């Protein structure tokens, strides 16, 4: 038995022992506040069991192991629907990046508090006019020449869990007179500071975990700056690639293939099980083939990682393919239910319910890299095809036509 197998077995045993308390079934019917509290308890349990910050250095509260162990744990954990979503961005990007840039002491306190679920960090990047085109952001950071403090003014958008967050990392425009990606600076902010206003943004399916965050004369010391003045775009890019590779679900968190098979076997049309219909067979079989391929790509990426190779396009392929696939299959599975296919239980999860999966799929095709941006990434970085025409290239930000 390899070390990794032993690790996996131990992790699985621990995880399975937590299902009763923290698993999907335990969460049903909880209020948002109760669910968050359960999540904090789960993170504490995980911390105490030594499964937090698996690939972080020990001095930052981690376990000092490799990304392989982390992925091994995550792949087991992802199966059970534990209440980890509140913390995944926090621990995935903002905390690791601040650990890279801030001085020792305070940062370790924060890291441990975040690992234990006591504190949450959010990531304040996107804005109304800066989505795929992040460098177009308009939030201003003006430095007080006397104190060196910075004053933030502007609006961020799509900030997940901002309403729960204690701290955030933010990119803002410190110099509108230079090309757009060169005039940005990166900071961390206290989300409870005066002048920070958080408003929830409800999404189409009714869920409200993303927010608008307004900054009105929010003053922060220069010590909260990460990286050089004008170097914010680089730090932001560094933030986004910290999670080079994470555990993935080939079903994109939608219902499983087994569920599709079961539903199509149970349902009948003119007395015949729907699974006998070629249209149903084609959708499910091709979806299965694609999911099998994504799983195989993932396993090979893990092996590459163990062998010391950095992953390449796997993440982009996974996101592009899996969410579209989920959208299509969910749409189809609604269809074949007949007139009752319009039913929707607002409490159901996207993993449990075709309608919820279908309703929330469009978000998946946009958030965290829209399909079109993923295709550009693949085309440009992997295939070496030309970058798009970008008329704003090299133009000072304040001279780009709005």
């Amino acid at each position, binding site marked *: 038995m390899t070390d990794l197998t032993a690790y996996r077995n131990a992790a699985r045993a621990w995880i399975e022992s937590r299902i009763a308390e923290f698993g999907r079934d335990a969460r049903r019917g909880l209020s948002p506040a109760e669910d968050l509290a359960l999540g904090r308890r789960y993170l504490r349990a995980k911390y105490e069991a030594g499964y937090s910050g698996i690939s972080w250095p020990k001095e930052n509260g981690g376990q000092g192991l490799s990304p392989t162990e982390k992925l091994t744990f995550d792949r087991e954990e992802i199966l059970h629907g534990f209440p980890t979503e509140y913390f995944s961005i926090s621990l995935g990007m903002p905390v690791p990046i601040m650990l890279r840039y801030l001085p020792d002491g305070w940062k370790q306190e924060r890291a441990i508090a975040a690992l234990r679920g006591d504190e949450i960090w959010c990531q304040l990047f996107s804005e109304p006019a800066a989505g795929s085109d992040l460098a177009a952001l308009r939030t201003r950071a003006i430095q007080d020449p006397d104190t060196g403090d910075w004053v933030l003014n502007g609006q961020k958008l799509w900030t997940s869990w901002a309403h729960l967050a204690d701290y955030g990392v933010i990119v803002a425009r410190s110099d509108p007179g230079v090309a757009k990606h060169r005039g940005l600076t990166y900071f961390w902010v206290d989300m409870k500071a005066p002048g920070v206003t958080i408003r929830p943004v409800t999404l189409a399916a009714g869920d409200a975990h993303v927010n608008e965050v307004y900054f009105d004369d929010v003053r922060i010391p220069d010590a909260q700056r990460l990286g050089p003045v004008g170097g914010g775009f680089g730090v932001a890019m560094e933030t986004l690639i910290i999670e080079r590779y994470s555990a993935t679900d080939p079903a994109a968190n939608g219902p499983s293939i087994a569920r599709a098979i079961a539903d199509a076997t149970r349902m009948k049309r003119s007395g015949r099980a729907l699974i006998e219909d070629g*249209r149903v067979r084609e959708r499910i079989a091709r979806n299965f083939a694609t999911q099998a391929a994504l799983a195989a790509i993932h396993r090979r990426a893990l092996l590459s990682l163990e062998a010391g190779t950095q992953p390449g396009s796997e993440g982009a392929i996974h996101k592009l393919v899996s969410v579209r696939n989920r959208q299509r299959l969910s749409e189809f599975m609604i269809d074949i239910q007949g007139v*009752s296919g319009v039913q*929707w239980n607002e409490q159901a999860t996207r993993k449990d319910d075709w309608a919820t999966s279908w309703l929330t799929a469009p978000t998946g095709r946009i958030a965290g890299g829209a399909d079109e941006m993923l295709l550009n990434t693949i085309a440009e970085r992997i295939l070496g095809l030309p970058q798009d025409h970008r008329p704003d290239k090299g133009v000072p930000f304040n001279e780009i036509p709005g």
Partner: protein
Amino acid sequence: MSVLFDEAQLQIADEAQRLLTAHYSGERLKTYLLGRGTFDRELWALFGAQGWTAICYPEAFGGLDLGLLELGLVAEACGAAVTGVAALTSSFALGQALLRFGADEQQNHWLPQLAAGSAIGAIAFGEGQDMLPDAPALRLEGGRLSGMKPAVTAGGIADAAIVLAQGENGPVLALVDLAQPGITRSLLDTFDNSRCTADLTFVDVEARELPGATDAPAGAREILRLLAVIVSFEQVGGAQKMLTAARDYALTRRAFGQPIGAFQSVKHRIAEDYVLVELARANAIHAASCAGQPDFGLYAAAARISATEAYDGVSRDAVQVHGGIGVTWEADLHLHQRRARTLSVEAGPLIFWEDEVISQLQGAAQ
């Protein structure tokens, strides 16, 4: 024969668009989405006042004696405005069933009310995954109806329904007054609650066969085809609206220094959507113009297929073109996405209409 619209038809279309655009309110529509059993009663009154409910009935019943094209144009305007009024099409379907197969007293009682919009109708044919079950589980024996019909559009608000039931000698179409004891309407939670979709349960309820529907499955199929054509127009209206929304957004939203419509991934997607809408529109008009002809069923099915492909496809794309804004509750795009999916399912999913096309093409080949 495909047609060009005449002056009168264009006037109906313009008027419907004008009124429905003026009436549109995303906020109000969202209250119907959230609240089961609510729909836009104010708008429904306008439908009656405008005579839109009267379009497809003979003058003798207070109707305007116009055809599928005229009603289709109103439905198209409704589609563009995602109106919270499922009754336009559900009442039409019931009315057409009565017109074709009803007894005189059934017609005399209901058709004037339907034409005036003072009564709301519904049809209830499907069970489980079958749109037209060969042997319905709902039973009609001795003039008494027992059993259940699932997910009846407008079932929560209708005054009467035509049901496809198993009679003593096979399937029958029967009219049931829904203001009777013994009827339970269970409003469903759906992703478009403005449809007032409900499971209807009947326990020993009075119902009367439509005497003209001697071949009930064929009769039900004919009604479903008529409904499909009008719903196709509604889908075309919604799809056109989403196309326009995507186009307008692509012209104004900028990224990387230019309107996003200058990126071919967006530009060509919208052009493909335009094509989907034009195909669907052409088929809807053609089907409506074929009413009463032998190949009406074939073209109704074709219209339905194209309309479903268009509305589902264009609204899916429009959301993608809008990016983050597109998936918010605030933006109204999800109203169209929900409505697109709802219309696709309610009036029979693609697999049903594909089978309809095939069986008719096979029939034609023999």
